[in-house]
């Protein structure tokens, strides 16, 4: 096999663009092959660049803060699901590393600007559009776009700039610095951790990218063959669930297994779950299916709903349904779909929105928050709360900071039932009923998250008793986290993961065909570990302490109401965390072995 020599550049541009939006100045920096072989691209590369720029030092909403849009070596290749980009910054919600991903044409056009990543610092004097045209950078006024939702913003930009450009934009929530505002592109969101607020703090309403600088592939013939093979497998049973029902198929399964978080994580099942299932929605609503650019799966299920008396549509995922439905004890299909539409309108992360509102509902019920209208089960209250958050009005100002900040504001140990880890609201996987996932949540570098740890896969297997965790499961949690780190850095969609027979070997093969490198599976595992270590290092430097690697107190002291066998105590979780840390090669407390990484 021929291996590319150092002077041959395939798959990467081997450079990134740093843009200071205070002055509008841009500078190009080289990226070395040894760095890229370790950090790959996407989340890994973004985290590396934040470390280089010492982003842990700065308030994430300050002008000194950095935010990175990182592409990957596979972007633009014929490999299915590879048109993705990562947005990486310090999170204004958690204060820790945040990497959120989105798909489609922005990734393709962004990489064609001639850079593997765009790093943005500073703060524009007034609301602006950052335009990157083949590497040429300008700032244009965006006053006319202020207050517009993401979808309308993109429409206006497309009219003004033309079809050759792609756009990443923020909605009103990002402009108002809501700590869980998203960055949107073509109806998809880099959703978690508040990257929309980081962009908003820089007075950047939108980024427009265009370019014609394509990277070459080392072995085009081999790559096309592998891409065909992967596409073929992507049509098979491994992705059938996503094609036919979407992620919402989880609703009924999770409900049956008592792991569908309900009523602010007090219960694991919801008596009206059936009504929110895709099976029930398909029976009464028009639906269409859509794919991201360069994707053969087509997991996006878009449902018709009336909005303000007019026909409209909304994309539905399991996480929207869980967070805006059972978590707030709401079973009305239309109310939940409209709530999801509202989150898209403002540019809000649905998980943190639902989690924070459900927490506030419980605080009202317990008498810690004097907002009697905000009740579990009230669809009207849910919609009102989302509007208040998106517009940063009255109670919305507090809700916009997330459940952890709200709990600190309210006191009375309400933090014990705030549904968050490191400030990030938990997704729809009840940790007491899925205890390997509980570990994944506790140790996750960006907080409680189902995309950076796939430990629920372990709980859905016969290898473990999902409600009675053993420390031996820590190794399995590490393995799923490593796979996710690689997937988020290559970048490929996680819905493909079921098609691989030998995951890391196939990742190496794809990367080698693109770049001409000669990496093997073992080196890919080491790269994944290096990416996780770098994220941890960032967190340590930003003030992480071992006490953060835990779950809300109530989950460690109280059984699930409707499944009393689902108990997770503090001692068990601490033993799991310790085993995880040692499995990672860190010390028992979770610090990296190199003493220089201690704060």
């Amino acid at each position: 096999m021929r291996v590319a020599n150092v002077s041959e550049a395939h798959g990467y541009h081997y450079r990134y663009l740093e843009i200071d939006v205070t002055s509008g100045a841009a500078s190009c920096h080289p990226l070395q092959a040894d760095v890229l072989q370790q950090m790959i691209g996407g989340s890994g590369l973004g985290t590396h660049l934040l470390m280089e720029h010492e982003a842990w030092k700065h308030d994430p909403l300050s002008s000194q803060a950095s935010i990175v849009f990182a592409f990957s070596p596979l972007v633009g290749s014929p490999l299915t699901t590879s048109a993705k980009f990562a947005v990486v910054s310090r999170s204004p919600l958690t204060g820790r590393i945040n990497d959120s991903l989105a798909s489609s044409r922005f990734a393709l056009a962004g990489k064609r600007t001639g850079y593997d990543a765009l790093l943005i610092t500073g703060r524009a004097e007034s609301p602006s559009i950052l335009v990157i045209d083949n590497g040429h950078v300008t700032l244009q006024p965006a006053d006319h776009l202020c207050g517009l939702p993401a979808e309308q913003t993109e429409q206006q930009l497309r009219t003004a700039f033309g079809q050759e450009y792609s756009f990443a934009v923020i909605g009103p929530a990002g402009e108002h610095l809501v700590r869980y505002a998203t960055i949107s592109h073509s109806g998809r969101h880099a959703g978690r951790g508040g990257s929309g607020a980081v962009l908003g703090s820089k007075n950047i309403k939108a980024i427009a990218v265009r370019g014609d600088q394509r990277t070459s592939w080392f072995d085009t013939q081999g790559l096309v063959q592998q891409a065909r093979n992967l596409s073929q497998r992507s049509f098979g049973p491994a992705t059938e669930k996503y094609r036919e029902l979407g992620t919402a198929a989880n609703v009924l399964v999770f409900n049956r297994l008592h792991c569908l978080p309900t009523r602010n994580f007090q219960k694991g099942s919801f008596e009206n779950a059936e009504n929110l299932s895709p099976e029930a929605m398909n029976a009464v609503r028009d639906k269409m299916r859509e794919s991201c650019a360069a994707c053969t799966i087509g997991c996006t299920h878009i449902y018709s709903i009336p909005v303000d008396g007019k026909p409209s549509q909304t994309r539905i995922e399991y996480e929207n349904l869980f967070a805006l439905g059972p978590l707030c004890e709401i079973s009305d299909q239309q109310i939940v779909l409209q709530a999801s539409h509202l989150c898209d309108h403002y540019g809000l992360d649905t998980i943190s929105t639902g989690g924070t509102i459900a927490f506030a509902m419980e605080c009202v019920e317990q008498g810690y928050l004097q907002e009697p209208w905000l009740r579990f089960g009230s669809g009207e209250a849910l919609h009102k709360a989302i509007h208040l958050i998106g517009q940063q009005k009255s109670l919305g100002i507090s809700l916009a900071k997330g459940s952890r900040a709200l709990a600190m504001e309210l006191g009375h140990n309400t933090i014990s039932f705030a549904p968050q880890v490191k400030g990030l609201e938990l997704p729809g996987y009840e940790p007491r009923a899925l205890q390997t996932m509980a570990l994944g949540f506790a140790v996750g570098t960006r907080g409680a998250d189902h995309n950076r740890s796939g430990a629920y896969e372990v709980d859905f297997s016969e290898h473990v008793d999902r409600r009675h965790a053993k420390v031996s499961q820590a190794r399995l949690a590490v393995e799923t986290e490593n796979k996710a780190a690689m997937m988020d850095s290559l970048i490929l969609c996680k819905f493909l993961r079921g098609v691989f027979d030998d995951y890391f070997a196939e990742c190496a093969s794809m990367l080698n065909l693109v770049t001409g490198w000669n990496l093997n599976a073992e080196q890919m595992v080491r790269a994944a570990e290096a990416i996780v270590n770098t994220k941890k290092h960032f967190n340590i430097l930003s003030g992480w302490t071992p006490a953060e690697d835990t779950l809300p107190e109530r989950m460690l002291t109280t059984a699930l109401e409707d499944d009393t066998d689902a108990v997770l105590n503090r001692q068990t979780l601490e033993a799991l965390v310790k085993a995880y840390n040692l499995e990672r090669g860190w010390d028992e407390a979770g610090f990296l072995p190199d003493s220089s990484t201690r704060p």
Partner: protein
Amino acid sequence: MKIKIEYYGIPRQRVGIASEVYEFDQEEMEIHDVILAVARKHPEFQRNCMAGDRLNQHLTVNLNGTRFYQTENGTARDGDALLILSMDAGG
């Protein structure tokens, strides 16, 4: 004995019902044999959910909402519920 079979996700799409009860002469049965009985009754299930005489690798079985038996090596008894669902729980 009676075993309730609950279908979720793709298996439900293929079989067209949410659940049904099977009656067997034995007092207990291997989960694998129960799956074969389901496949015999539902040709669509046989065609789309089985790989040979086993569930395809992307599906799994859960007994009574507690333990998973992906290899179908377990025992079902009278009154048990067998859930057939996707292995993939990604959301």
